């Protein structure tokens, strides 16, 4: 027997998709993904309506989804992140029901608990065998880790694997195995390699970004956490990557042997692993070709599920052992609450991803952000929406000084002792307003565009339309 089905349409039928079905996707193919559109177009052409889409993230390559929303094919969206193009559509109010934003850790927890049940999971697999064993590490559309797809595979009533590299059974290098899979469909291409992973992730050349990155590395050093066994996560944003680079310099100079690097992995983290800064990488998602190559070949570079990465319901998750995480922000308020869901004009262009999971887990959660962007102050009285609670944020690094959460006076003292310029967050707000002028505040409308669901399942905040 094998599970290969000739066409996607047939697989959709066999899996029992019908009006009102709840279907899911992962985002490992990032902005190069063809699978979500492929499936949704087919479902639309089959005449189904009222579909609930649970996608771990949505990118601008998924813009056709907006048409399916307008035509009533899709009536519910559950996701962890949404990039600006599709966010702008949602911000225009095309979807009746509020989008449910979760975190990368909260999403699998709610799938497993049955809060967000999945009828059919459509899993894009860069390589799969005829029984559904699959991996992201090889194939022309290789994306490395398939971490976000594990919960979907394990819990969906039906699982359809879609691959552009169908191989004979058994596939030895598998990350999700056949025990979960119902159907396998071969297609010409599951994605555009150029959009799946970038060739290289580039470090910022922006002078202000570099100043902040250097300061962030100095803060980590002064925090006392940078010693043997150190664990670390950074985003792929320009300044946070540059900070990782400076940190690497310090670790190599001082001979510090860390334990693990975590999260979305870039070539810079791979370099740190290879040069002995870490014993291993805990990889839920690969950002560039070097990371994909490394996870395929280096046994110390390990693939983990989103549960293992960040689930609040796991008996332990990697984020719980994190020493330091470097994160970005669109806005941060004087209570250290962070907005990463919208831009400064209130338009949706992001999401928690692992932001609030890592902030909750790490001993030192740092935000790196300039005082202002394009005349808009980053530090405000109140964020437009709360993505990550201020109680979990320890430090804000700007080009004009470092603000420490007042709940962490011992940390502030240590940083001062280490020669860091520690300032009050209100001073930073004033400095930004003096520079930029007072922006006219956004006025919230009465339409709820999205609910921000915290990793523990509680409603953290709501995103309203802007009047």
């Amino acid at each position, binding site marked *: 027997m094998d599970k290969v089905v000739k066409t996607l349409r047939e697989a959709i039928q066999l899996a029992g998709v019908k009006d009102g079905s709840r279907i899911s996707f992962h985002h490992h193919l990032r902005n190069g993904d063809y699978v979500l559109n492929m499936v949704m177009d087919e479902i639309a052409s089959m005449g189904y309506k009222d579909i609930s889409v649970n996608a771990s993230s949505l990118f601008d390559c998924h813009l056709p989804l907006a048409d399916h929303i307008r035509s009533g094919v899709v009536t519910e969206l559950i996701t962890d992140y949404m990039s600006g193009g599709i966010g702008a559509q949602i911000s225009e109010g095309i979807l009746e029901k509020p989008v449910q934003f979760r975190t990368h850790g909260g999403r699998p927890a709610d799938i497993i608990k049955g809060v967000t049940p999945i009828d059919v999971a459509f899993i894009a697999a860069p390589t799969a065998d005829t029984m559904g064993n699959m991996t992201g590490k090889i194939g022309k559309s290789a994306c490395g880790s398939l971490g976000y797809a594990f919960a979907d595979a394990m819990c969906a009533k039906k699982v359809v694997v879609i691959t552009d590299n169908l191989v004979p059974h058994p596939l030895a290098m598998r990350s999700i195995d056949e025990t979960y899979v119902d159907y396998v469909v071969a297609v010409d291409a599951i994605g555009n390699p150029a959009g799946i992973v970038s060739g290289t992730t580039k470090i910022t050349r922006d002078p202000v970004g570099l100043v902040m990155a250097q300061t962030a590395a100095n803060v980590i050093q002064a925090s006392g956490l940078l010693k043997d066994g150190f664990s670390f996560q950074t985003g792929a944003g320009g300044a946070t990557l540059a900070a990782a680079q400076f940190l690497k310099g310090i670790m190599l100079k001082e001979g510090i042997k860390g334990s693990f690097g975590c999260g979305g992995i870039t070539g810079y983290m791979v370099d740190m692993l290879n040069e002995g800064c870490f014993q291993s990488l805990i990889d839920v998602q690969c950002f560039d070709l070097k990371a994909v190559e490394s996870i395929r070949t280096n046994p110390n570079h390990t693939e983990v599920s989103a549960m293992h990465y960040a689930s609040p319901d796991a008996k332990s998750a990697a984020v719980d052992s994190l020493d330091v995480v470097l994160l970005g922000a669109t806005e941060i308020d004087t209570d250290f609450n962070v907005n990463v869901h919208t831009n400064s004009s209130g338009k949706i262009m992001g999401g928690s991803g692992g932001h609030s999971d890592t902030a909750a887990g790490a001993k030192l959660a740092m935000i790196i952000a300039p005082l202002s962007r394009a005349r808009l102050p980053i530090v405000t009285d109140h964020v437009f929406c709360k993505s990550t609670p201020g109680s979990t944020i320890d430090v804000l690094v700007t080009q004009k000084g470092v603000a420490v959460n007042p709940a962490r006076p011992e940390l502030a003292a240590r940083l001062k002792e280490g020669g860091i310029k520690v300032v009050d967050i209100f001073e930073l707000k004033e400095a930004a307003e003096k520079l930029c*002028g007072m922006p006219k505040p956004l006025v919230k409308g009465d339409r709820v565009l999205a609910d921000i669901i915290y990793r523990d399942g509680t409603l953290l905040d709501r995103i309203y339309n802007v009047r």
Partner: protein
Amino acid sequence: MSTLKKASCGTMESSDAYMELEPIAAGVQIDLQSVVEHQFGDSIRALAADMLQQEGIDNVSLRIVDRGALECTLRARLETLIARAREAGGANA
């Protein structure tokens, strides 16, 4: 009051503004495109109108493409623009 010529100033780079001014028969028309329209659009238009009025200019069409310029930058660009519009012989006469 001197006659005005068509003039331009500034760049489209981030934190700058590009501006063009052209004399018209009567009145002041300000056309603003700004990345911070919501937060600062009104104040940018008011600043431009103010500076034109202070200079006694009441017959121009002004186009501003703002890329998030600070007020001191906007003032500088407007000042240069007005000076250029009044000049007969080029930017540095």
